[in-house]
């Protein structure tokens, strides 16, 4: 569906440039939920902004490809689209639900205006009445009564605003929805509600989701596959249940022990010592080795490649010297994982 190949994102140009995303390869399959987790500054949001070409300056996509495979016709490279093509591509094929529900809606326009203008921008032939009916249906889809159409954003609660954003993201029935910490600003009860609704909508409409969050416990429940980012690289990628059951990378393990699970047995919580790496002065070798409790000889010297570990399920991949690559050549391609049906 969406195939990211060797994506590199820099902040700044020339000698001053700081690389926030290093040669990331990631594939989002049709209809699946792919979780992307990591600490603040791990590059997960930068990756999302980079692949949609929404990076604010001084962010620059330094290289790579983002291939969007369509059901009809050849794949397109999002990074090579002309501005007009890009405008047509955006939202119609890949829509985004952003972090700040509070600030994602323009405060001076009615909800209906903001729903209408996206439909009108992509379907100039649509009629006013048609757009209004669509907007009505969209709100109903996310469980908001249609008379809220004429409300202004400040008249809605935080949860309602985020649901309006989700409705807006689904307005053009895109194949891919990117969610960048969509529930971070909401309380836990509202988070559950919205995620439940989202899972249901996904079953109904069949779009794929790239779900970005620092809350790994949320991903374990909600996603099919999970990729973990550290220091601008993917360090582990595995089906959600496997990752939760047995994390291979010590960083993933640390993340899993940093959150209380909402369900399941009680576990002891531990944090990860140290702080995220400075992008201007990345550690040599594995970026995690200064904080890694299990670091050993090769870690500081050489960068471990991301690949399926020799002694494990071929659907997983990890970049760690504890689990060196197996028979398959290090690096890509990763065997595809079947989307599992999650409640």
């Amino acid at each position, binding site marked *: 569906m969406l195939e990211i190949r060797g994506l590199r994102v820099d902040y700044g140009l020339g000698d001053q440039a700081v690389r926030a995303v290093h040669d990331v390869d990631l594939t989002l399959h049709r209809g699946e939920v792919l979780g992307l987790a990591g600490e603040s500054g791990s590059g997960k949001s930068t990756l999302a902004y980079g692949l949609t070409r929404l990076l604010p300056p001084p962010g620059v996509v330094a290289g790579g490809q983002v291939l969007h495979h369509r059901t009809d016709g050849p794949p397109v490279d999002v990074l090579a689209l002309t501005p007009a093509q890009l405008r047509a591509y*955006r939202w119609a094929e890949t829509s985004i639900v952003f972090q700040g529900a509070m*600030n994602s809606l323009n405060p001076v326009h*009615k909800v209906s205006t903001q729903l209408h203008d996206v439909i009108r921008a992509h379907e100039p032939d649509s009629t006013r009445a048609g757009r209004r009916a669509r907007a009505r249906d969209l709100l109903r889809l996310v469980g908001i009564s249609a008379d809220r159409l004429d409300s202004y954003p400040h008249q809605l609660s935080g949860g309602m605003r985020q649901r309006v954003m989700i409705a807006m993201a689904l307005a053009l029935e895109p194949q891919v929805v990117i969610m960048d910490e969509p529930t971070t600003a909401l309380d836990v009860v509202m988070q559950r509600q919205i995620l439940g609704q989202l899972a249901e909508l996904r079953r109904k409409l069949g779009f794929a989701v790239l779900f970005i969050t620092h809350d790994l416990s949320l991903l374990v429940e909600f996603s099919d596959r999970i990729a973990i980012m550290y220091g601008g690289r993917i360090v582990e990628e595995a089906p959600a249940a496997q990752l939760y059951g047995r994390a291979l990378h010590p960083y993933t393990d640390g993340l899993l022990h940093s959150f209380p699970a909402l369900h399941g047995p009680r576990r002891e919580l531990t944090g990860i010592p140290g702080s995220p790496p400075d992008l201007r002065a990345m550690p040599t070798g594995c970026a995690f080795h200064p904080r890694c409790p299990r670091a050993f000889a090769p870690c500081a010297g050489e960068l471990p490649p991301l690949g399926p570990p020799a002694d494990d399920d071929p659907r997983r991949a990890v970049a760690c010297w504890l689990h060196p690559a197996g028979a398959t050549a290090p690096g890509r391609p990763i065997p595809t994982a079947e989307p599992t049906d999650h409640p």
Partner: protein
Amino acid sequence: MRFLLQRTAFYLFTAWAAITLNFLIPRLVPGDPVQSLISRNQGRISADAIASLRVLFGLDRDQNMWEQYVDYWRQILHGDLGLSFTFFPTPVSTVIGDSLPWTVGLVGVTTVVSFLLGTALGVGAGWRRGSWVDALLPATTFLSSIPYFWLGLVAIAVFTGPGSFFPSSGGYEPGLVPAFDQYFVPSAVRHSVLPAATILVSSMSGWILSMRNMMVTVSSEDYITVAHAKGLSERRVALGYAARNALLPNVSGFALSLGFIVGGTLLVEIVFSYPGLGYQLFQAVGYKDYPLMQGIFLIITVSVLVANLLADVAYLLLDPRTRKS
């Protein structure tokens, strides 16, 4: 709606307070209008004339403060602002009525034009921040820090003189009768070019700067990123999202500047001897023409209040967050 009524009530109260002060201040000043007329004519007024002047100014009746106050209000409500000393015996309302169109015509038009132009340029500069347009910004900062009147003096020194197209003073060719005909209108326009350009150059820069900075601030808001992500056209994002939101502070600034049209550009009118209200006020101060000053102050007060009310209404219309449901 309730909010609007509250504001209106507040402004009515302020207007009452201002008018009452306007009534009190001259009465606290020693002397009376007749005395100052006598001193202006250096005693060459006969006793009979003085007596009739006292009748004319209503000083013969022995009224207490309260009766005077009631009378004052009655006069104001009838549009009677008393008689001017300078143009004695022309009523103040006539003097103001003659000079107000000049001020509104010159300063009013330039204020509106400078707001529209400055805001449009500011939108452009803010949207294309980081481009060559930014190199022009120091020039606008420089221009906005120059006082009007100094720029006016420079303009007079550079552009006027014997044989020049631009006249250095006045509102129209002496000898013409104000009327909408082919002699008067071109002359009036020609006289207004330099003062208008002066005001435009120095006031527009402020609008450009503030609009540009608001655009830059608003451009980093999340909803602008969302608008881009929605695939809206560049134009729609720039105008419907960024400029629409960045405009809010500028609009209230504009409404306030409308209030200062009447009194704010006094110095330009003085420099160009332009027959507007500011020039009239300047002369009134010179001749100690209290009734005229009072009348002009009243007009200034009322226009500032009306402009404030306009600003409130504009904000109410433009920003839904200020409307209480």
